[in-house]
């Protein structure tokens, strides 16, 4: 079995373990390439069906193409699509783009906090109504006890220590110093009330694996990843004000794979275009402890 198939099979196994063990399960979909690969794997695992909600945390500062693509696929693939947001902060304008707070604070409000209260059901969720083709308030406010997330171990330091099944306490905190053992396909599927488990089926994938798989499976991706003639493309997607494209003329999946293989980016972090990571020494790590993906 080749490497991609090995990765694919392990991911499907993990998705099925999650589905068998958690009654209130959801999958986070950031619209990026990784979680879109994850969505594709879920369709494979459950034979074309997605038996849990796809949750997107909308900061309303996302690059417009991303939202367009999200809703197009949601309709086309009949996805149980849900989004959540931090409406208080958005209304009051206490955000970085408005010049009121720094990047890290903005991220922790619009993403980490919105995520926390969307997952535990305290804040309003919006669900895509396939008949109307639009979102409406979701009456289901139950807490998600299992959350599937598309993080990869090779993205940066703190993610290299993640488990496939990683517990979070009531405050969404990740105790990196005391993680559960995980061996022989046995994972942490038992959890105390009020806590939840993050499930990471893509942990062993690399950036190159993701693109190779997108090519092999012909998975639709957002156009922002490709050079549209400006000599630039996005390597990692986020909010428009804090995400910068990289210098690259890769116009399609094949060219991106070629580019990655040449080692052009070997010494540059994948998330280097994400400004919040560089705020202080451990920007992303601090965010992650607080529940950021």
């Amino acid at each position, binding site marked *: 079995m080749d490497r991609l198939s090995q990765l694919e099979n392990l991911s499907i*196994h993990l998705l099925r373990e999650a589905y068998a063990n958690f009654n209130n399960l959801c999958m986070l979909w950031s619209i990026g390439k990784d979680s879109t690969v994850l969505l594709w794997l879920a369709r494979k695992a459950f*034979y074309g069906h997605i038996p849990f909600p796809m949750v997107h945390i909308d900061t309303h500062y996302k690059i417009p193409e991303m939202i367009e693509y999200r809703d197009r696929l949601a309709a086309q693939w009949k996805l149980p699509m849900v989004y959540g947001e931090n409406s208080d902060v958005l209304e009051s304008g206490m955000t970085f783009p408005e010049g009121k707070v720094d990047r890290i604070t903005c991220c922790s409000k619009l993403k980490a906090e919105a995520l926390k209260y969307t997952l535990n059901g305290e804040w309003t969720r919006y669900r895509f109504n396939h008949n109307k083709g639009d979102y409406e308030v979701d009456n289901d406010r139950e807490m998600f006890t299992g959350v599937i997330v598309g993080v990869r171990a090779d993205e940066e330091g703190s993610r290299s*220590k993640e488990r496939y099944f990683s517990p979070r306490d009531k405050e969404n905190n990740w105790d990196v110093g005391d993680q559960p053992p995980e*061996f022989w396909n046995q994972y942490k599927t038992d959890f105390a009330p009020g806590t939840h488990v993050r499930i990471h089926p893509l942990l062993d994938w690399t950036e190159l694996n993701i693109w*190779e798989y997108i090519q*092999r499976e012909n998975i639709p991706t957002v156009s922002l990843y490709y050079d549209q003639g400006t000599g630039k493309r996005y390597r990692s997607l986020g909010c428009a004000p804090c995400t910068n494209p990289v210098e690259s003329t890769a116009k399609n999946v094949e060219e991106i794979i070629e580019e990655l293989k040449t080692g052009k980016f070997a010494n540059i972090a994948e998330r280097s275009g994400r400004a919040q990571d560089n705020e202080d020494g451990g920007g992303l790590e601090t965010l992650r402890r607080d529940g950021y993906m």
Partner: protein
Amino acid sequence: MNIRSQMTIVITGHVDHGKSTVIGRMLADTGSLPEGKLDKVRRDCERNSKPFEYAFLLDALKDEQSQGITIDSARVFFSSKERDYIIMDAPGHIEFLKNMVTGAARAEAAFLVIDAAEGVQENSRRHGYILSMLGIRQLCVVVNKMDLVDYSKKVYQQVVRRYSKFLKNLEIEGVSFVPVSGREGDNIAQPSDKMDWWTGDTVLSLLDKFRKEATLEKLPFRMSVQDVYKFTQQDDSRRIIAGTIDTGTLHRGDELILYPSGKKCQVKQIESFIDTPPLSAEAGEATGFTMEDQIYAKRGDVLARVGEIQPSVASVLRVNLFWLGRKPLEQGKEYILKLGTDRVKVQLFDTLRVIDASNLNTDTMKKMVERHDVADCVLSTQRAVAFDRVDVQPTTSRFVIVDDHEIVGGGIIREAIKDTLTEDRDKAMELNRQWQIGNIPLSEKARRYSNKAHLLVISSHSGNKKDLLGKALERRLYDRQCQVFYLGYHPEEVGSDFGDSRRRKKNTAHQREELVHRMAEAARLVLLMGGIFILAANDLTRQELDVISLVVATKKITSCWLGNKELCDFAADIYMSEDVQVEDLVKKIEKELTNKDIFNS
């Protein structure tokens, strides 16, 4: 597409013996570090006025650096000319043994680092022992810090001798040794010029010599059922048995046996998402298939193929385990056993010996298995489970134990021990394997009849009231259009009264056993037909009820006890007084069956 092969390696060893330094050095010497990383770490060290160490390169997290020890198995991606590697840096501190286990269990081969100056230490042995239990068969021992012992051949050979002696007891083949200095870079990526007595490998060249593990697809077929899918949206009517193949290869049309029940089924089609359905699927594939037959399968069942070595089924297991829990493993306490996808309550039945992993001394007196102990024990599960003995198929012999939401131990099953139900279980499995039954699913039968298949057991200490009750109940259910059948057992002669199991003589005990088994088989037929079977006998014991439930192979059983509760040996669903009118008893049972949704309204 040219995709490089990949291998996962773990680095283990005693705390401070220099695992992280060896990896850090390897990354630096092979140019595998991100640009500027080495300089940044050097600058950080200068700023904090501490000497630079290669180990710092790996310590990606803040709290870890401050403690100066690896607390978790950090993954490092690294490529040689041969292939890509994921290197897991496992912590050597005993507190973090569970993290070491996590890292090591994913690996195909292991490095174990021993400090030449300190020699073989507690965790050098403990890690070696656990690596062998985890099933790691390729090991390379890295004798580090040779610079501290003046690159002495004698010191090196002494470590090799000591550790080889220890390894002899473990089932690890292909052990190699190499003398290195992580700090100075000797024999890491480049051969050392300070040890002219060494002409062997470097760590890097040994890495490339590890073989990919022998393939699992050639072994007998095993698949742990992960789930049974029936997604009805978009008119999908498939009922798919899903799971990842543990060993062997699955083909369309294969005749399979489902364990622990022993029921047979045939693969109709291996399912797929958008590709054409494949003709086969092999070990490691997360697959799923539809069946020709409508037999009941559930998560936790184990599938094997007809004609191959079959798995064992038992409820008393002789195991080797390592314990990670803060609280010791104790007798009389209930834990959860997870084996494949199965999950069952388990208790420690006996501790045969506790091995102090640090020196492999055994303590046969000690009955408690404490944190970080390795032990040889007997476990008893609440019901029978399907598995393989470790010498038959290691993959399906592995289990973990869960306590208070946490995985607290792991182990391998060495053998199945006979229990009181073994014979009945074997008989029932034989029936299941050999009987051929039709394809009409029970759910379809239930739609035609007014009831679902169910077994009702009535027992009392004496008297014939249960007989009257059984017959009255049969009449009542029959009038409700149910498929129902009553069978009571009434002892023939006074004197050979084997209706009273507590006073029965030895020669009649066997007769009673035989009779219970036969009644259960009769019940099984009626249940397979979709009917309600009412079985009545005096003084049924818990053991006999277990036998009955084994033979009928269903959990759809309601048990009633008539009379003094004190005399009842089993946990009945309904207790009834003998003074109540038969009609009222009938109503009571009818109500219970209604609650259990037995009747189609």
